[in-house]
């Protein structure tokens, strides 16, 4: 078990390291001079050169990488080009909003999709199964902004049940905040639902056909016990991993969803920063995303190890 953990931890560190190089090189080595971006097109070459020196842009790339990563670890994330404020507090506030949204999404999507997927898988080719299979396929194909706009149209503009914008600005207390969270989290949950329900269904069908399940049925175990103790235990293992992996996917989706609903999270900040070429903000958010993704993978490994005795013995 401990050897397994050490190996996984090493893998996480390696991934974060490699991805940080990707982020660094995409932003700093590719064309487009940071000093030029800050000062604008009209600035004189002398001023640009001076700023390049101040920012250390004239140093070789590996040195700049080490400086940058050291600054990131120390929490010195610099100042936003476009907002002229420190990046760390800005990003931290947005991060807490995004985490809140992500938590609500997972809380909605995981129980619902596992429940639907298991029911569909146990009654293969039934009406429910067809609805779940076709519905989840359609949900996976729908871009998040389409789903989001349809939900706004129906639930906000036609029925007037929830606010169309979720900017959390006019916080009418806790109730207003919750109402604003519902449509964006429903949008993300619907897409995740399609993905997870399909996977769970396929796993349940695969496990149900295995010899050990037939043995369990033939030796007279009640159906409930066969399903709960045998099928689900094995069928849900890949789902656990996928929930964690879908974190990265959820992140992609949330970037768009936050923009649709005007939600003040990391995603909408990222879109804003990209449109202004605000590199310090872009770098900080990307690094946070990568660290979060790696941690989600690690926690999936831990849960997987807890569920799978073969790994514990290693």
């Amino acid at each position, binding site marked *: 078990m401990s050897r397994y953990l050490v190996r996984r931890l090493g893998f996480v560190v*390696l*991934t*974060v390291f*490699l*991805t940080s*190089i*990707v*982020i660094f090189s*995409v*932003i700093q080595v*590719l*064309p*487009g001079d940071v000093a030029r971006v800050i000062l604008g097109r009209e600035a004189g070459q002398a001023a640009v050169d001076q700023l390049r020196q101040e920012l250390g842009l004239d140093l070789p790339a590996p040195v700049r990488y080490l400086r940058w990563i050291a600054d990131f670890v120390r929490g010195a994330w610099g100042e936003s080009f476009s907002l002229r404020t420190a990046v760390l507090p800005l990003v931290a506030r947005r991060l807490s909003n995004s985490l809140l949204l992500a938590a609500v999404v997972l809380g909605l999507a995981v129980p619902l999709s596992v429940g639907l997927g298991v029911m569909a898988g146990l009654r293969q080719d039934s009406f429910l199964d067809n609805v779940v299979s076709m519905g989840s*396929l*359609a949900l*996976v*194909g*729908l*871009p*998040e*902004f*389409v789903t989001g*706009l*349809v939900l*706004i*149209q129906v639930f906000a*503009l036609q029925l007037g049940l929830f606010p169309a914008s979720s900017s959390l600005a006019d916080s009418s207390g806790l109730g207003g905040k919750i109402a604003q969270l519902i449509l964006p989290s429903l949008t993300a949950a619907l897409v995740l639902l399609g993905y997870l329900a399909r996977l769970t269904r396929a796993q349940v069908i695969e496990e149900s056909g295995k010899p050990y399940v037939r043995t369990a049925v033939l030796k007279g175990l009640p159906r409930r016990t066969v399903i709960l103790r045998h099928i689900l235990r094995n069928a849900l293992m890949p789902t656990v991993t996928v929930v964690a992996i879908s974190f*990265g*996917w959820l*992140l*992609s*989706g949330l*970037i*768009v969803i936050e*923009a649709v609903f005007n939600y003040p999270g990391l995603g909408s900040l*990222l*879109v804003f*920063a*990209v*449109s202004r*070429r605000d*590199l310090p903000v*872009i770098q900080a958010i*990307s690094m946070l*995303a*990568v660290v979060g*993704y*790696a941690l989600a993978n690690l926690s999936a490994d831990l849960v997987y190890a807890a569920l799978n005795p073969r790994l514990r013995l290693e």
Partner: protein
Amino acid sequence: MSASQGGRSRFRQAVAILFQQRSSAIGTSITLIFVLAALFGPVVAPYGLNQQLTSATFQPPSLAHWFGTDQLGRDVFSRVLLGARDILAFAGVGTLLAIILGATIGLFSGYTGGVVDEIIMRAFDGLLALPAMLLALLLLASLASSDLSVIIVLVVVYTPIVARVVRSVVLSVKELAYVRAARLQGEGLGWILYRAILPATYPALAVEGALRFSYAIFLIASLGFLGIGFQPPSDNWGMMVSDARQLTSAAPWALYFPAAAIAVVVVGVNLLADGLKRIAQTPPDPRS
């Protein structure tokens, strides 16, 4: 039996399988319709992309304007039809380049093995640890907004995925007798990679290509919606949707039809990919 005859009957068998199942038949038909729209859209579209009919603004869908008109009197049907070429061409070119580059890297990396393989695969791990949308935004933040940038984004995002898929096929066939025979015969690396091993990856490549194509449409539409990588005025469906957001009460059809076009084509290509997967798993008909 000659090889080309076997190939042709295999193709016929594949088409038969595609149209056997209702879902993949629907998917294939949808994909074909959109490809036709992309090819012939400019010929059949009743109005131009930005042609403004000042006397016919905010028209609901009717026989004259199938999808209605927007606040400037632009015919939504023509706009959606004309947008097909843009999005399918971007997605197609990007996917094709990613398939070519990914297949080449995957073949080379998987066949060579050792340190080179390890380095390439770890570098791809680093790329794949970034969610696709994030990687796309990162690249577009440093590249200029242009058509080329969007293609570059698709290639960078999808090449590692294709390379991984191809590599896994290479690993499973590279020690088979016919590859070893080619090696012993003294065939060159290029011949072994492209003539001996590459055909074994065709089924996986076809499935992966269709899947990547649908995700590429999805990604391009989403980027267009966010207004990143595309300059207005653009015939990107996602950008049409975002432009029409202010019209949700006055002309909701201007929003619904481009949005529906995106959803239908993505689901259609996805169903086609499902069908291709089934073909890839079906052994060739022994009678042919």
